């Protein structure tokens, strides 16, 4: 089962089977969906465990010719960079199907769309053909639209569906233009990533072309990741989405843009990366500070989680902007950690919405008494969100800050303030409003999550957060060698001029963390 094609196509085939079943087989739909995502999860775990860290090249590779006339092929594989993401994606997909118990109407359409989305997401993270990567990512577009429209909540969900769809399409199309430009400029007549990498390593593009294409990819992928100031679709979209769609989207799909930047833009366009690094660092600060402040003002739990999730993306961007091994490794850890965290938060919020019919912080309170399990889970998730050590977010955010220090000290100072203070303020205030204080009469009968099946998704996600938080080496040992290879051209491009001007003073005031000697190479 440790076969990538199997992992990706399990949900897709299940979607097809469900679509072809008669409408009355209601029980079977959910079972099939659970089974398919569980198989994917088992496969992803096995791939993650069997991966040899540091081995050159791809593992579990599978290549099939597809559209030879255009240089497009089916090519999947994993290395240290995407094994963790694949695991996280499969875990969130399984959890998302688990929490879909709340859906009672039109289950057939629901599970078909959810599984399509899950398959597309998993496929996007293991594709090594740029075209395939794009197609898998876009597979989620129509399902997202219909899921939010049909099962979404709130009065402005109609607006939210169109906003999220148009924003994501715009971002995706800009990125596509960048990818096509890359393909045309490389002149290799292939969309295959390893081949393009070899080709461009031998004959790099002209600096001006690199800069333009990197800009296209940065803003295209950036919109997909809700880069400030193109982030407004995210909070409203997530607030309107049904729980499972929000989990998959905020948790996994959104990471695709970051993945694209790390996997495609950094190694293939090192000069372009250098040109844009400063801009990116300041925009990332926009995410961290601006969206953090916006999150502080929210009275709706979903909007709060949505804004905080946008704010967290700032750390991921900052890590990329550092163009250093430490920073980018941190970005990948943040991607995985935040995927789990966002899915967990939306799962809890979805549970609250289903049972209390509101997630307005002003109407809730004292719920820890009636909902001890959920309350415990949520408080831990909130601590993780403030970057408390012991949860996977902490190593990720710390690494991005360390990595960015040598190149963007000002931004790091401001970002650290945002991370430590602003996040703590809104998370703790939300925790107080939700779980402490007097319990309104109407919530006395609220039912906590009972039974192993109901608790399973929460336990899985929180467990993964804690495991990777206590032993981040499980991730970093895999990620670092690959990131070192991918970042090398770009960091060279930075290092050469930077070292020429760079004062020994800066380097001595910024002692690199002991375990990361690559920075000062």
């Amino acid at each position, binding site marked *: 089962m440790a076969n990538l094609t199997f992992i990706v196509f399990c949900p897709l085939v299940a979607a097809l089977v469900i679509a072809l079943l008669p409408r009355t087989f209601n029980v079977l739909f959910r079972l099939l969906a659970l089974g398919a995502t569980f198989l994917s999860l088992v496969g992803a775990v096995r791939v993650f465990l069997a991966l040899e860290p540091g081995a050159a090249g791809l593992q579990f590779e599978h290549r099939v010719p597809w559209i030879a006339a255009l240089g497009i092929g089916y090519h999947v594989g994993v290395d240290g960079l995407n094994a963790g993401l694949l695991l996280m994606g499969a875990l969130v997909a399984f959890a998302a199907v688990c929490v879909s118990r709340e859906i009672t109407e039109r289950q057939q359409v629901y599970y078909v769309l959810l599984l399509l989305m899950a398959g597309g997401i998993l496929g996007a993270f293991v594709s090594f053909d740029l075209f395939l990567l794009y197609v898998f990512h876009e597979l989620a577009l129509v399902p997202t639209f219909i899921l939010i429209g049909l099962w979404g909540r709130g009065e402005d969900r109609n607006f939210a569906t*169109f906003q999220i769809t*148009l924003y994501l399409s*715009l971002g995706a199309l800009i990125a596509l233009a960048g990818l096509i430009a890359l393909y045309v400029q490389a002149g290799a007549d292939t969309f295959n990533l390893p081949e393009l990498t070899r080709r461009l390593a031998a004959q790099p593009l002209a600096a001006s072309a690199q800069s333009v294409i990197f800009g296209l990819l940065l803003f295209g992928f950036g919109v997909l990741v809700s880069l400030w100031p193109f982030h407004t679709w995210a909070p409203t979209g997530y607030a309107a989405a049904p729980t499972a769609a929000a989990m998959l989207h905020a948790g996994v799909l959104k990471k695709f843009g970051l993945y694209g930047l790390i996997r495609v833009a950094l190694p293939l366009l090192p000069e372009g990366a250098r040109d844009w690094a400063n801009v990116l660092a300041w925009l990332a600060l926009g995410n961290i500070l601006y969206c953090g402040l916006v999150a502080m003002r929210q009275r709706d739990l979903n909007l709060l989680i949505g804004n905080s999730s946008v704010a967290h993306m700032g750390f991921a961007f900052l890590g990329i902007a550092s163009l250093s091994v430490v920073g980018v490794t941190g970005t990948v850890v943040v991607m995985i950690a935040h995927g789990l965290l966002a899915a967990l938060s939306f799962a809890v919020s979805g549970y609250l919405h289903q049972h209390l019919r509101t997630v307005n912080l002003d109407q809730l309170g004292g719920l820890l008494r009636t909902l001890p399990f959920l309350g415990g889970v949520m408080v831990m998730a909130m601590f993780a969100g403030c970057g408390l050590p012991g949860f996977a977010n902490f190593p990720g955010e710390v690494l991005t800050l360390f990595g960015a220090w040598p190149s963007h000290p000002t931004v790091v100072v401001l970002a650290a303030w945002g991370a430590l203070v602003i996040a703590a303020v809104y998370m703790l205030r939300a925790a107080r409003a939700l779980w402490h204080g007097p319990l309104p009469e109407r919530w006395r009968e609220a039912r906590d999550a009972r039974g192993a099946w109901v608790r399973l998704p929460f336990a899985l996600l929180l467990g993964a957060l804690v495991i990777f938080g206590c032993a981040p080496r499980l991730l970093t040992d895999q990620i670092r060698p690959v990131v070192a290879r991918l970042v090398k051209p770009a960091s060279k491009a930075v290092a050469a001029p930077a070292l020429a001007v760079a004062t020994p003073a800066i380097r001595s005031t910024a002692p690199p963390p002991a375990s990361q000697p690559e920075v000062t190479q």
Partner: protein
Amino acid sequence: MSDLVVIGLELAVVLTGMGVLLAELWVSPAQRRRLGQGVALALGLVLLASFAITLEPSRTAFGGMYVLDELALFFKRLFLLAALLVTVIALEFADRFEAGHSEYHALTLFALAGMMFAASAQHFALLFVAVELVTVAFYVLVSFTRRRVTALEAGVKYLILGALASAFLVFGIALVYAATGTLAFEALAGRLETFTGNRLVVAGLLLVGAGLGFKLAVVPFQIWVPDVYQGAPFPTTAFLSVGSKAAGVVLLLRVLFEAAPELTARSGPLLPLLAGLTMGYGVLGAIPQRSLRRLMGYSSIANAGFLLVGVATRTGEGIGAVLFYLAGYVFAVLLVFLVATLVWRGAETDEIPALGGLSRRAPGLAAALTLGAASLAGIPPLAGFMGKFLLIRAAIQGGAENPTLYWLAAITLVAAVVAIYYYFGLVRAVYWGEEVTGAGSVPVSRPARLALVVCAGGVVGLGLFPGLVLGWARQAATGLSF
């Protein structure tokens, strides 16, 4: 005699049309439906026969006026397929015609013959005759439901503007002839070098372009489209938006790249400008529409713009992309019209909100409509995406030599995003639009079901496995000179 063999496909279509007219004398009214099924069957056979034709070497007829080459064959297959599916739509729509079922099928066949001749035109005379054959047949087809005022209005508008376009066309041809003394494309291309600065030739070709622009629905000759689309019966609208447009495309390609390649190469920013304007007009006009046919009318204008992007690149890649895009477009548009015809059987409406609740009443049709709309919107992995991808790729590739194309690619991207908005409006109406009261389940006849499967299969198949058709499209584009 050998000429008749070369035009065998057209002959078969014309004979079928006449056969249908005659057959009505003997067929009882209760059996009329059979007639349409017979037409569909015959078209299917002709389509199959077209694959038996070998083109080594490409053949000509009537002293070189008519050519049967890869490009012609590609379009003939496209027209045959479109007419076949349109006939199935017409079968479903037939209850709404008071009389003249067989005439409707016969006129469709005659229009089809005109399109097929157009695909082979090598001479301005054949071009004009073919265009007139198509247009005159459509004059009747547009106002076929003759008791409805909107249909008559559409018919009159199409008649007046069509006649105007024909006048442009014939005047342009006359000017070209006056200046150069020839009407044959090949001879014209040979002599054009001596006439490059000749204003008469330039004016003549611009007028010809205007006449064809009317067929294609290119700005500024697009005004008629929404009204005519809205008033015409569904099958006619469907045939207008795929067949008539594709005929315009093939004639444009023939004129631009066979009759006047020299002038085309020196046309500067004209084609990119028209492409950009057409896309912009189409997508912006489509946003507020409530009538499905009107929406498809604006979408048809926008798609003419997308097609022109490929033409404007003036490369084999670009033209190949245009042909591929058209193939995907045919399947997607006919899928939408087929579903609409089935859903609104017996209803006078074509308002998009009237699709509300379709996903409960007929989940299969709802999924089919979603597929068609998503393909038109250019969502991977469907045919429409592949087509847009190829067009944008061709534009970016051509940008190295002609930087205007970078701007065109950017406009195409923006237009594609706007297009997503209005096509997804259809999806919204189907899935969570307000439910229409009193609407029951939707019966789907066997031919319609087959046509649905063919269209959906085409939309998905061309998206996932574009290799074969793309190969044909590229092969067809090789005969043109850029």
